[in-house]
């Protein structure tokens, strides 16, 4: 599983992504269709061991089985 520079800048590691893929849930409303490569990017959301709320977009490829498109940390909204 390859992580891009932007994940590094967000201080998200491969182990956190794997943990969320194992324990998170499919967030169907966030799925997105990639018209360039004609396949779906599926959103998986969950908490990391450090309680970070992450959303990961994954795509399936015939040979590599799964690739990670990108990972975001969902920022908590603050009111006041």
């Amino acid at each position, binding site marked *: *599983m*390859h*992580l891009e*520079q932007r*994940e*590094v800048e967000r*201080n998200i*590691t*491969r*182990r*956190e992504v794997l*943990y969320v893929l194992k324990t998170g849930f499919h967030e169907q409303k966030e799925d997105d269709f990639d018209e360039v*490569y004609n396949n779906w990017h599926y959103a998986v959301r969950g908490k990391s*061991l*450090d309680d970070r709320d992450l959303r990961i977009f994954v*795509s399936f*490829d015939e*040979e*590599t089985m799964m*690739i990670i498109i990108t990972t975001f940390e969902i920022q908590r909204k603050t009111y006041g």
Partner: protein
Amino acid sequence: MDKTIQNEFIDYGCGFPVLLKNVPMRKVHGKWIPDVNYNELEKSILIMLCHKPFKLTGNEIRFIRLYFEMTLKEFANRFGVQHPTVVKWENFKNDPTNMTLGTEKDIRLFLIGHIKGKRKIADLYTEFEQKPFRTNRSVEPLQTIEIDMEGVAI
């Protein structure tokens, strides 16, 4: 599918840079990405961290903790400290932590015990006694780990 071997590639997926050499690459969706077994790669990195001649950095400690799927509290309990202490270690980022040499030895022995089997623990302990690791504050800010992918199972 396009494939090639790239001389060098820096992987950041562990939270710190690891220089990979002779890396099989594969083109996926128009981008070249390493075609490696990341589980084997991370095991190799953990073994290298056991033998690293300098103190472990904050990001390396974080990688070890997350590899074993331990929370801050679980990691702290395992190594006999309070969890804010682990937070402090990890906040050193790419600098060596200020943990005691005894704790660092314990962490490295824990690693080797979980990766290579008990017989090697004694060998590693002897290695620490003969060549204690050094603090590298005055040397370079970051000692990059290098792994030749020809030696890692793909």
